[in-house]
């Protein structure tokens, strides 16, 4: 992706055009991933917003020799994982007894407008344990290798492969269950 290399280079030189182009090019991919990982529109929007803001501030320090899209997707996955941990902690501590409400309605302030299909799949994927959900989505939708996912999650490749296998099995039983209904 020669275009991405030029964009990164221009961005590192301080080009606002390059930042606009990167934003326009990848914002939907990032929102899609965040939506399916968090199953919560406002969390997803926060995650992508934060990823872009820290990216915008990182021109001087950014050390990126690989794929820009994958880098941004990994940033989203990392933030979604942290957010998920924080949400779980809040729920275990009893600080947030109210169930997280999935924002479905479209408000003027809402950034992301999800299709029915995306909502349906977010609801399906949320039934998978987080690690499995992330692995399946990053591998199948973001095209990441198990090795790369393992690096990003800080676990072994075998663990990632296991999560993937279990994730697919669980997904299969959910989908088969849907058909039986």
């Amino acid at each position: 992706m020669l275009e991405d290399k030029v964009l990164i280079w221009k961005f590192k030189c301080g080009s606002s055009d390059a930042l606009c182009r990167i934003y326009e090019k990848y914002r939907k991919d990032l929102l899609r991933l965040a939506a399916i990982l968090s199953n919560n529109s406002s969390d997803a929007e926060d995650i992508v917003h934060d990823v872009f803001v820290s990216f915008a501030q990182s021109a001087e320090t950014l050390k990126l020799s690989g794929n820009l899209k994958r880098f941004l997707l990994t940033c989203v996955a990392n933030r979604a994982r942290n957010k998920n941990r924080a949400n779980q902690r809040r729920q275990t501590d009893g600080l947030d007894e109210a169930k997280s409400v999935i924002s479905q309605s479209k408000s003027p302030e809402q950034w992301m407008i999800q299709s029915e299909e995306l909502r349906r799949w977010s609801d399906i994927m949320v039934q998978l344990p987080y690690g499995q959900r992330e692995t399946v989505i990053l591998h199948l939708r973001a095209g990441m290798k198990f090795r790369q996912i393992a690096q990003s999650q800080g676990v072994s490749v075998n663990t990632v492969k296991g999560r993937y296998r279990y994730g697919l099995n669980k997904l299969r039983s959910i989908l088969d269950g849907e058909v039986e209904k």
Partner: protein
Amino acid sequence: MRSAENIEKIVKNLNLDIDTNPQKDQTVLSELLDAQKRSMKQQSALALPNIRRFIMKSPMTKFAVAAVVVIAVLIGVNPFSNSKTSIVLADVVERFESVPFFRLTIYLGYDNSDEAKKVEIWKSEDSHVRAHEGNKVIFADFSNNETNIIAFDRATKQPINNMGYVSMILKELCSQGRFSLDTIINIIPSEDGITSVETADTAASKETVVFEIKHKETPEWISIWALRSSKLPVRMCFHDPRNNEHGDFFFDYSEQKDAKFFDPEAFTNQAQEQPAKSSSENVLNEQEIIDVLERWTVLSGGSFPSSLDIQTIKDIDPNADISFLYNGLKNLNGAINFETPFATFDRDNPPSQDEINKYFDSVLFVLSGRFQEVLAEMTDWHYVGQGVKLGDAYTAILWFRPKGSEKYRVIYGDLSAKDVKPENLQK
């Protein structure tokens, strides 16, 4: 009961449509630009931007060096198994470095788009480089360790920001102080992985050998055609199936440019001498014709217009790229002192579509008016560009005889120009 493969296929092929609220998009984008500005200000307080400093600090540079080492090892151990004359890619890389001068023409684009970006790079015997990319003329000096890259606007001859494909390629090359093929190869893949080199089935050609370079983890590929006899590369192309990005590189070793061509001072002095020249001097006018033709064609979708008059210029999509129009206007404004609100157009605060539509007629006026004015200074001009694709180096689209000249100037579909004797003009 679905199989695991079936589930994989379903998830992979899901059409998960998503849209964004344009107002919110604008808000987020402004926030990002603010964040970027603040961050850049803090950094510039420490040190002013300096291209050379950037080059030496860049992690991409370090990557390029590391990647070159890897590929050098790889290409050295991949023998050409079915060869009539045994050549490995390392031979081609080495031979290319020993070439005193060359011209490299690059076409970059996407499969589904007619628009191709053309880039030309010339290298001199004493390691000076000149490149043309759109309206930019870029000079680089590889002759000593202190490598400099300077860019100028082709029309105004003023120094400009030198960011773009050429600058990036040159920057990578600068990191090694030499113009090497392996560095060009390594600029292309988007991953910092190891590439494998294979020799393609070359039974079809006794003259050439083809090397196919593949990335281990991504689907990108690069092919290099080299002559068996001289081991010189003649063509290189790459393709990235993920976004259909492709590039074609053509190497030419026949034309040696003089030292003046590579001298940035000579280039800028030419600008200062320009006003003293009579209007019949064809250099500036020809360049203007080419510049306008290029913009006109790109804005028309990549094919040259059917005729050169106001009617066809009106076919240009009013929603065409703003900055492209703006740059064209800026150059032409310099020539005829015409002013539109776009002349003060601020990229961070772009005009609304209504404003663009309002002044679009002015844009057309400037383009067509100036074009006719320039053409009127030429004698016996003929335009036959209808339907010719931008980048077609073999089809003449326009020829004219500059005043006082015996020969005709012929402009081709790739916007190159040559002197042709009247008797040699295509019938």
